[in-house]
């Protein structure tokens, strides 16, 4: 496999993607909602509330959290502790939902889209190996999700530090658990989902079918990621590392088996189910 050609496939897909406003504007809005608008709204309500009812309810929620989490929650007042809890624990799954959704949308039509446009014929007659095509498409699907995560995570960090930091004694975010989540756990989770979605994209006959299948595939992955990302923040170092190792192994396996699912006949539109 030649990496220069693999990166060319990825680069050309990304060029097409970033020229397509129909794609990146909705995805930008999605990232903005989950990383900025939703947290900003919730944190504003929690940090500025004068309602004794709401403050009491936050206190009750804090009491239901596991012991280790309660020990880690910082803040003198129920509102400060509530805002800290919201920032660090409740919004963590956002970090996986957004990139997964964005990358799935790209991956779903990565291969079937080539067939629909007729460009699959060109790729089938090119000297590119099917593995170069598959991995190039996978990289092109991963990058938008990672960019959204990196940008969204940076903005989210600024937001919570500016909103909640003054209430809990200074800037506190990202915590160790969030670093592990973003750097070690989120990438392989996206890769696992994408390897399945690209496999589906190589098999189905239309983009619409690929999108349906991608939704079915990504939902359980999102659910799993939701649980894992919430849980590992409680015990970030050991659990996060272990979950990351498992996810990376699954991602490698998915990549290998996914790349075997693609062949030139499917690029020509002859091998679909």
């Amino acid at each position, binding site marked *: 496999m030649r990496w220069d050609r693999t990166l*060319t*496939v990825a680069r*050309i897909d990304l060029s097409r993607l970033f020229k397509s406003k129909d794609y990146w504007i909705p995805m930008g809005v999605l990232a903005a909602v989950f990383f900025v608008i939703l947290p900003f709204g919730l944190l504003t309500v929690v940090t500025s509330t004068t309602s004794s009812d709401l403050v009491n309810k936050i206190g009750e929620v804090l009491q239901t959290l596991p012991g280790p989490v309660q020990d880690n929650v910082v803040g003198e007042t129920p509102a400060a502790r509530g805002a800290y809890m919201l920032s660090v624990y409740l919004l963590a799954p956002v970090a996986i939902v957004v990139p997964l959704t964005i990358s799935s949308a790209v991956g779903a039509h990565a291969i079937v889209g080539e067939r629909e446009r007729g460009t699959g014929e*060109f790729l089938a007659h*090119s000297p590119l190996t099917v593995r170069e095509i598959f991995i190039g498409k996978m990289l092109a699907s991963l990058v938008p999700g990672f960019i959204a995560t990196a940008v969204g995570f940076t903005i989210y960090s600024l937001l919570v530090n500016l909103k909640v930091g003054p209430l809990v004694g200074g800037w506190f975010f990202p915590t160790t658990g969030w670093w592990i989540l973003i750097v070690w756990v989120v990438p392989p989770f996206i890769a696992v989902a994408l390897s399945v979605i690209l496999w589906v994209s190589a098999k189905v006959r239309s983009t619409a079918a690929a999108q349906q299948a991608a939704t079915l595939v990504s939902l359980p992955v999102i659910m799993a990621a939701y649980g894992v990302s919430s849980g590992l923040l409680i015990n970030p170092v050991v659990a996060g590392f272990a979950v990351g190792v498992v996810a990376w192994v699954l991602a490698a396996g998915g990549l290998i088996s996914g790349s075997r699912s693609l062949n*030139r006949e499917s690029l020509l539109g002859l091998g679909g189910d």
Partner: protein
Amino acid sequence: MPDAIEFSHVTRRFGDITAVDDLTLTVPEGSITVLLGPNGAGKTTTVRLTTGALGSDEGSIRVLGLDPRSSGDEVRARTAVVPPKPALYDQLTGWENLAFTADIFGAPHDTIRPAAERFGIDHALQLNVGGYSTGMRTRLALARAVLHDPQVLLLDEPTAGLDPESARAVLNLIRELAGRGRTIVLCTHLLHEAEGVADQVVLMGAGQARIVGSQTDLADRFVTNPAVILDAEDRTALAALEDHADVVSAEWNGSVHVRLTHLDRLPDLVAELVGNGARITRVEPDNPTLETLYFEMQRSLREAS
């Protein structure tokens, strides 16, 4: 001359359909071969088998001495295919489409502009291909096909839907590349466009090469009565041709297209017309067109079956 492409008893099936059936065919290096045949004759599958984009179920294929199944990447690096639809990325500019191809075929980027200029598409390289006309798209696809200077060029219905200028660009490309020793395979329905370019004509049907030969050979085999075009100042003087013993048929189409029993009867026939007072202005051979040959070959096959 060695063969650039060799098919030996190649069969390829799609489920119950046999697209290529025991096909044996050779394409000499540096030649132009035209594949003719109706839809479903197996032309596109033959192109796809040649590059290894499809594998065969039976038989063996050699392209430039290589097996496309085991050395497909090398075969594809030395060949180019122009498919019926240009297969371009609409969101990208013409330049980006060509640069992509150059990068995956290992061609330098300084080949891009000359290739585009060759097909008169250089003025639109910075525009998105989505805004191109059908002719512009085909010209870009042709420029893309020659970027890496392929040894074998496979054109699958490249002139379908093209304006005359673009169609001529295709035929000029074919002649130019063949002149430089490249091997060309052209699949087409548009027989008049392939007229005179083929070193070898292959009539395909039901996945087989039914008839193979040069246009001259095929004319000798399938057009038994030689034809000439005659004209005279006063055409009524040619009316006697219709009942002449040496004339099989005479069609009036501006001038007169005459089918003779034998070509060596022509001098006597002309002398007789002149003797009868006709002032002859035109006598020239009426070589059978590829279209005529095509239908003659099809008729011959029908009669044989």
